[in-house]
């Protein structure tokens, strides 16, 4: 057992901390979220320069061969800095799918572009009619002579309108398989028939609803070598990775919120004394600190288990982490606002922005109830 960071990881953490402190102020972020694309190309270039975009990929593809723990460190900094760039969508989700399921040619083509910062990607997977279920896909990719025709609608595609390439889950349908096989396709968002309805999210990220109407895909669009690997386990794995990443991001945001709240308790005076001298508030702050520490432990567990060959062990850890992190995030977010009083509910302070990001994290890729379902049902299997 070793739960300390390596020398390299400490250096990475230090770099990230410096980056957030120096280059990603609340003011900077304010300008970025107000911009047309809602993300910053110069900052993304810095991400690339720092090697963050290359982290989880093998060196063959221009990567650095990092682990899920390295991703955790990046995501924690995303949380601390409330950074809005599409690291999750591009590197963790799409990059993860390419890495785990792409053909050699696809990996060689796309991964270096992710790593050098020239390619933004999105993963179009969820559909309406469901909630957070992973396997509810009705989008159809009908085989034709030289490729596929794609029809369907995807919802909540993170940074879908910013992406240069999309990965889309759909049923691969042909005469021999009329019900279809769940598959993944590379789709050019500029292709005819792709309609993107972009919107800003509650926490000032960007997302989109994307519909596909008779979109023509060529033969090479299918991710991987003709169903050599089933798509569902790949999707499960990448969504586990995304949830592990979200947990880490939440931990970063909670730590920043707790730090700000503690500072406020020490400096804000009422009745002639710092409000931090009131025992009820002290104990509340202890609860928030404790919740964040437990959340950090579970985020670490999820990242470690992302490297497990045992899918059930991995899924359990990611689901359990999301449950605990969500509940911690709820407590810390709500109470940080509460303890800041009126200032906490204004747009002017970063407090409310952390609170909103934490709230959104709880509702992204499965809420606490959804993930508790997995942990709970695994008791039946035992």
């Amino acid at each position, binding site marked *: 057992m070793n739960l300390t960071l390596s020398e390299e990881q400490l250096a990475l953490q230090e770099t990230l901390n410096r980056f957030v402190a120096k280059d990603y102020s609340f003011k900077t972020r304010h300008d970025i979220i107000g911009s047309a694309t809602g993300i910053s190309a110069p900052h993304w270039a810095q991400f690339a320069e720092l090697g963050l975009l290359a982290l989880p990929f093998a060196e063959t593809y221009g990567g650095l061969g990092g682990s899920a723990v390295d991703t955790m460190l990046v995501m924690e900094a995303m949380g601390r800095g409330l950074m809005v760039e599409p690291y999750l969508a591009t590197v963790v989700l799409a990059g993860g799918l390419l890495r785990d399921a792409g053909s050699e040619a696809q990996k060689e083509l796309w991964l270096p572009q992710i790593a050098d910062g020239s390619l933004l990607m999105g993963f179009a997977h969820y559909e309406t009619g469901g*909630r957070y*279920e992973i396997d509810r896909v009705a989008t159809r990719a009908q085989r034709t002579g030289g490729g596929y025709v794609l029809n369907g609608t995807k919802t909540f595609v993170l940074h879908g309108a910013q992406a240069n390439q999309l990965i889309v889950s759909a049923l691969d349908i042909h005469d021999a398989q009329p019900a279809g096989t769940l598959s993944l396709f590379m789709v050019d968002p500029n292709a005819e028939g792709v309609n993107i309805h972009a*919107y800003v999210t509650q926490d000032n990220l960007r997302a989109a609803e994307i519909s596909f109407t008779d979109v023509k895909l060529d033969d090479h669009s299918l991710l991987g070598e003709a169903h050599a690997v089933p798509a569902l386990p790949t999707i499960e794995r990448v969504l586990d990775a995304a949830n592990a990443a979200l947990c880490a991001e939440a931990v970063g945001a909670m730590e920043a919120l707790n730090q700000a709240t503690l500072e406020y308790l020490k400096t804000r*005076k009422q009745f002639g004394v710092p409000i931090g001298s009131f025992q009820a508030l002290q104990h509340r702050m202890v609860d928030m600190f404790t919740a964040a520490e437990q959340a950090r432990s579970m985020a670490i567990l999820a990242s470690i288990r992302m490297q497990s060959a045992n899918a059930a062990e991995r899924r359990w850890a990611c689901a359990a982490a999301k449950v605990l992190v969500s509940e911690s995030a709820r407590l810390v977010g709500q109470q940080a606002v509460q303890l800041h009083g009126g200032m*906490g509910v*204004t747009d*002017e302070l970063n407090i409310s922005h952390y*609170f909103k990001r934490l*709230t959104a994290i709880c509702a992204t890729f499965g809420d606490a*109830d959804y993930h508790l379902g997995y942990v709970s049902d695994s008791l039946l299997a035992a």
Partner: protein
Amino acid sequence: MNLDPSESEQVFRAEVRAFIERELPDDIRQTVLMGRELAKEDYLRWQRILYKRGWGAPGWPTAFGGTGWNAVEKHIFDEETTTAGAPGQIAFGLAMVAPVIMAYGTPAQQQRFLPRILSGEDWWCQGYSEPGSGSDLASLKMRAELAHDAENGNHYILNGQKTWNTLGQHADWIFCLVRTNIEGRPQAGISFVLVDMKSTGITVRPIIMLDGGHEINDVFFDNVKVPIANRIGEENKGWSYAKFLLGHERTGLALIGQSKRVLKRLKNMAALERANGRPLIENQRFRDRIARVEIDLTALDMTMMRLLSAGEGKPLGPEVSMLKIRGTEILQVLTELSMMACGHAGLASLPQAWKPGWTGVPIGYAHTPPMAGVYFNMRKLSIFGGSNEIQKNIVSQMILGL
């Protein structure tokens, strides 16, 4: 004991209900029920309708043009109007400054101000909190210095800043606590003055809320002249008028009507929303959450009725703090569940969809767009109007004697 309404309660409720059915404009009702944003004119339209019916001031005695209703009747009126989707009446004039003017104002002040509050002609706002004085209100610093000139006669000159001013951008008047004496106990140097918002030297600066809405402001006073005739009662006695006002601010803090309205919407939402292709309400975990908060709301409603019944129509005591704590917690849970019900779709921010008359295509269902914002906004409930921590201190001291 029974929950059967008395003959007169039954008649009264039916009368209120029929009135709402007839008079509440449908566009306003829809705006409220969908959780969208009301315009100033919406509030005023409803106030004028009430005024015309003689119900402009449910909390006032008849002598001042009020309804003279007792606590039970007021509760019924509140509940019926709120659950039906009527806008809340703006409390700052009707429920806050008016009782102070009635109790401590001169006849001239009463005649000048009260009728215009009743009719909706004057919109009032509040000038209590300052940046350094929230829970510790008595530490307020805004100065009012006596002066005299030919044009204004005896007057105060106000300098300072008020904050957490709600809807002051719409207001014609503001009531302020100001410091007229800097010596002695802080409570002993405060006066209560009424200020015309059109006065030279007043600047209203919006404070944007976390949901993007503009409902609160900073109000800056730069050498604002206020005739001495606009002072309520005696100089330096403002603290006791302020405490009297805070006692009157507390009606409706249990938010029972609002919670019932949101619960009903939540049930409708849970029938529409889908989990794994089935109605969300069939998901036991989510259904249990609704059931649990419905039980809490029922208990609070019963508690309110118990207190009203025991009080025989008289205003409630410090128990109101308990109602406020539970009421705000319950409404906060309800708005949180409403957001949760929307799943991923609730994460889309479409502020334009909050506006009445919006006809765009929502992400999710027609009910979806405002839900997250409403949840965010409702965090204020446990902060404003005396934070829930302050309310617990009140229960601890006034009821438990700790």
